[in-house]
Structure formats: structure tokens, C-alpha cells
């Protein structure tokens, strides 16, 4: 456990150096923080965010899908697109991370509409220009917002029974006199409050209040764009479709442009009879970025965040290769390697530090894999063939054990590949 200690003054500056580096390589920092700190390379994915924003801006009611594996940089692209729209056009843009609004594991159709409607209502009530509305308009906005909120969170109605004791399924309106007789309280569930039972309420019921809100919004802004993030967490494509079909159809009808994320599994249509290209106007797929000595895209990520001070050649290339081109893995490995150097009282990263953290990353991916899955991985490594029609194989993609570089180029994550146990060669 013994380790050498440098002089206190040196220690302090050494610690500050490492702290600054760790801040730049923080794989769990919110994407907007990294953008604001100038740590993001905006053209990493061929400036995808500009394409997303331009289409949403030019074609009201358009619907675009962004698909990519875990840690591929989807949220960063969405936030950049939102920022671009806010800066350059007359578009009112909303960014909704659905997974922070509601429990996605019990998500129902109507939840996207409810989340969007709530944000729109809040913006109109409290945002810039709210004070300029007439009293009549303010009242109307308040009513529409209340209806959307009821739709989102449900309500409690007072119900009446007739003289025979049978419940009359008609709610007594708020503020009116309560007629004599027996009463009971009836709970109408909302769309966002978990846990949610399967609901059959017509999504059209929220259309009218939403239209009212949008009419007010469009008096000031030319168009409205909503960016839905977080739906890529729904690894099951069936669930994704059951939610988006109804909600997005309504938003298209209201001419609200939509940019939405989806899990990788929607690309392969496992267990679902839906084709994404039939439904969405454009599908953007963020593949992993190959470690390419000519292209140097991954290397530029390290450079932008100031890795040069801690990494001498050829260590950046080793990091890029070990990450497999998964952006978050690259940032994590760069951070963890520095952490190893720091706790070992070294001033810069060594190859041994990188090997150690890459081994740990690979071990994490290996955990929980059965012999069958390991055979699939070894076969992929040998033959480069990978059948994406098999749900078990899609699972390997979703968990990032297999990486997709193009529609015909699948490879085992290099950190995992280095720790996969190999079968003993058969003796002659």
C-alpha cells in the first residue's frame, strides 16, 4: 500500500492538473455542460445536428428519428440541434427528456403529448411575452393548460348515484351546486403518473386544448419543434412503437415538427411489423466511429479535451482502439487511465494504466455472458458474420458487446474481445 509522496506544493498543482483533466473527461456530465464548456466537436457526426434542425425548420410537421447505441452521442446532437434552432430561426423549440418526466417502463400512448403539452403551456404562461396577452387570452390559456395537466396527471371527479342507488357515470362540474343524493369520488388516471394501467382513452381528447396553446404560440413564433429524448432507453422496440404511433400521428396533424430518439432494436424490427422508413420522414443512424489513423475523428475528441498533456504517442491511438469508437467508452477510458496514474502517484498516463482500465472495461462487458453468447462473439470475430434477425444477437448490440460500424460491418467490442476466454486448442 506504500506509495511515494511528492512535495506539498507540487502535490497541490499536480492535483489541480488532474482535477482539470478529469473535469474535461467526465463521461457522466450532462451533455449541455460539455457543450457549454466547449468540449464538444460539433462536426463529429458530419454535423448531424444541422441536418436535424434544418429539416425541422423547413418542413413543419416533419418527423425525424435518431437511432444510435448507448453512449454514441445522441443527446449531444439533439441539444445542439435545439440550440441551432433557437439561435437561427423563429422556431419555438422544446427539449423533453421523457425518461425524467415519467416511468418509461409503464409508458402509454399519450405520454409524449402530455409531456409536450405541459412544457408548451408553462412556456406560454410564464415565458417571454406572457404579460402581453389580453385578460381573455390569459384565461383561455389557463383553461387549456389545465386540461392538458388533467390529461397528464389525471383528476378526481365527484360522481352522483340515482335514487335506486346505481352510480350515474356523469361528473358534477366544478363550482356547480352538488345535487342531493349519494356521491362518490372517481379517479381518472393521468398519462404521466406511474404506475399506469393500460388506457383506452382517445388521444384526440387532448387535441383541442393543445391546438389552443399552439395557436397562441404561433402568433409569435413561426413554428414549433419538439425534441423527445430518452426513448432509446426502451430497449424493446414493441414498446417504442406502441407509444409513438398515436402520439406522433397527432403531432403531425398539428404541424409540430418532431425529432425523437429510438433504441437500436427498431432498426432490426425484431418482433415488430413496423418499418421505420415508412413512418419517419428521415432516419439518422449514429454508428460507432472507427479508429482510423487517417480520419482521426476519435483522436480529435481527446485533443479537444486536452489529453495531450497526459498522453504521449502512441497512447492516444491505443485509447481510441480500445474504446471501439464508442464515444462514452473513449472518454471513460481516458478518465480512468488518468485516475490510475493519479492514485499511483504518476504525473502522466502510461500504457500500463490504459491496459489496466481497458481490461476492467472488457471484464465488465464479459460479466453475465453465457457460453452460447461467447460462441457467437468468437464466431463473429472469426467470420465477421452476424445475424441481426436473432433477438439474442440484437441483445449483444444493445448491450454494446457487439458494435456496428456499418450495415455490413459488425465487430466485437475490442475491450471485450481482449478478455474473452478462448477454447483450448484440440490436441492432435
Amino acid at each position, binding site marked *: *500500500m*506504500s506509495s511515494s509522496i511528492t512535495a506539498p506544493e507540487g502535490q497541490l498543482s499536480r492535483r489541480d492538473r488532474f482535477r482539470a483533466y478529469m473535469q474535461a473527461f467526465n463521461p457522466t456530465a450532462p451533455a449541455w455542460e460539455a457543450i457549454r464548456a466547449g468540449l464538444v466537436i460539433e462536426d463529429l457526426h458530419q454535423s448531424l445536428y444541422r441536418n436535424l434542425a434544418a429539416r425541422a425548420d423547413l418542413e413543419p410537421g416533419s418527423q425525424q428519428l435518431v437511432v444510435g447505441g448507448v453512449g454514441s452521442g445522441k443527446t449531444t446532437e439533439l441539444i445542439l440541434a435545439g440550440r441551432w434552432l433557437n439561435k437561427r430561426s423563429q422556431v419555438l423549440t422544446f427539449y423533453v427528456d421523457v*425518461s*425524467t418526466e415519467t416511468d418509461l417502463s409503464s409508458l402509454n400512448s399519450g405520454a409524449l403529448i402530455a409531456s409536450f403539452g405541459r412544457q408548451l403551456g408553462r412556456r406560454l404562461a410564464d415565458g417571454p411575452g406572457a404579460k402581453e396577452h389580453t385578460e381573455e387570452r390569459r384565461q383561455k390559456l389557463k383553461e387549456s393548460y389545465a386540461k392538458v395537466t388533467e390529461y397528464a396527471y389525471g383528476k378526481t371527479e365527484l360522481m352522483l348515484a340515482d335514487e335506486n342507488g346505481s352510480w350515474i357515470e356523469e361528473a358534477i362540474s366544478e363550482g356547480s351546486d352538488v345535487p342531493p343524493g349519494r356521491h362518490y369520488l372517481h379517479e381518472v388516471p393521468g398519462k404521466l403518473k406511474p404506475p399506469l394501467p393500460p388506457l383506452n382513452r382517445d388521444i384526440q381528447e387532448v387535441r383541442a386544448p393543445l391546438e389552443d396553446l399552439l395557436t397562441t404560440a404561433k402568433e409569435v413564433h413561426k413554428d414549433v419543434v419538439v425534441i423527445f429524448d430518452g426513448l432509446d432507453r426502451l430497449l424493446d422496440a414493441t414498446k417504442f412503437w406502441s407509444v409513438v404511433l398515436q402520439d406522433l400521428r397527432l403531432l403531425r396533424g398539428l404541424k409540430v415538427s418532431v425529432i425523437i430518439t429510438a433504441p437500436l432494436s427498431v432498426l432490426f424490427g425484431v418482433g415488430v411489423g413496423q418499418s421505420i422508413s415508412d413512418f419517419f420522414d428521415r432516419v439518422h443512424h449514429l454508428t460507432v466511429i472507427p479508429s482510423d489513423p487517417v480520419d482521426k475523428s476519435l483522436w480529435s475528441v481527446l485533443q479537444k479535451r486536452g489529453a495531450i498533456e497526459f498522453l504521449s504517442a502512441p497512447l492516444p491511438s491505443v485509447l481510441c482502439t480500445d474504446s471501439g469508437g464508442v464515444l462514452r467508452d473513449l472518454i471513460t477510458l481516458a478518465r480512468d487511465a488518468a485516475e490510475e496514474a493519479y492514485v499511483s502517484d504518476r504525473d502522466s498516463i502510461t500504457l500500463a494504466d490504459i491496459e489496466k482500465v481497458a481490461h476492467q472495461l472488457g471484464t465488465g462487458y464479459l460479466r453475465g455472458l453465457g457460453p452460447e453468447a461467447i460462441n457467437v462473439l468468437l464466431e463473429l470475430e472469426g467470420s465477421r458474420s452476424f445475424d441481426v434477425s436473432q433477438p439474442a444477437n440484437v441483445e449483444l448490440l444493445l448491450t454494446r458487446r457487439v458494435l456496428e460500424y456499418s450495415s455490413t460491418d459488425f465487430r466485437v467490442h475490442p475491450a471485450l474481445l481482449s478478455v474473452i476466454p478462448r477454447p483450448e486448442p484440440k490436441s492432435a
Partner: protein
Amino acid sequence: MPEFSSQPFFEIARRLEIRGENGWLAVLSPATDSSAGLDQLQADLRSVLQKPTRAIQLQPSTFEELREAMHQPDDDAVILSSGTSLTQEKWRSLDIMRSALERKGPVILWLSPGDVANLTGYAPNIRSFIGASIFLAGPDGSIMTDAERQERLNDLSQHFGFTGDEAVRRAEAGESPHEPEFVEWLVLLGRGDLL
């Protein structure tokens, strides 16, 4: 190379400290006496990070409860304990709510070995946050031998140029140097209460 890096709790806390905000990592709980280990981890985190530390049980918590607990407050250190192994379904459901778990303060997952396998298989979004930071707690990782402890105390005494008694006196007088090594020294002297 061992499967997971074995680390004293103090070292795990030190890693979180150098990472700054939003840090996530996982610690494999020891097979026996897990609750004592959890207490020790909490104490070391408190000392090194100089932050309040809470342990939250993942098992019975609903989405709403967890979201609220993680954000009120959102800057202390939180240990999410799986207790006995979580079901695959629970891991899936935690995974899709990862954004709701994101916070300013550090998040430490306290897991059984079975949970680590499920984390990788059923919670790829959380696993992506954990990355390679899965550490092993246990007798060899959490507790130093007497000889190791004595050697480290000598190193620290030499480094600062005064004895352990003097270190305690200075800490009591509020004259502690602002260095992680001094924090480590007090913890090794059994005086983490002075931090």
C-alpha cells in the same frame, strides 16, 4: 490481472474525489458482513469527500420515490444498495430511468456479484455510466494489514514533517492542511471525526 480491481474504501473515495461532480462507480459488496462494509464505505466517503452520505435501498423504491430521493438533495454522496440481488426486470426498469437518477453528487452502486452480471446484461445505460469503474470490496481490499498501515503512517509523517500526535493536535485546532493526504492520515489514525 484480477477480474476486478481490489481497492480499500479510502482509495475508492479518493477516486471519486478527484473525479469531481457527477461521478458514478460500482462496488462489489463483500460476501459476508455486507452491512458492516457498507457502514465503513459510508464513513470513508464522508471523510474524504467532506459531504453528507446516504444509503438508499433500490429494492422497494418506486420511480417517484427514487427520483425524489436522488434530488433532495442532489449534491451529497448517495450509495444505491441492491440488498439481495435485484431481478432482471428491476434492472431494466432502473436502466430506463437513468436520466432521472442523474445528479450533481456522486452515485455509488453497492452490488452483489449477481447484480454486476445483471447490470451488464439488462442495464446497458447505467453500465455505460459505470464504465470500467467496478471495484471489489472485501477483507483484502477494504482493510490494510498492520504492517501496511504502519508503513503508510511513516510515509505521511515524513511527508508532512511532524508526528501523528501533532497531526491530531493541528486538526483539533482547525489548522489542517487542505490536502487529500492529510485526510488519509487522520483516517488511518482513527480520527476521521476531526475532518
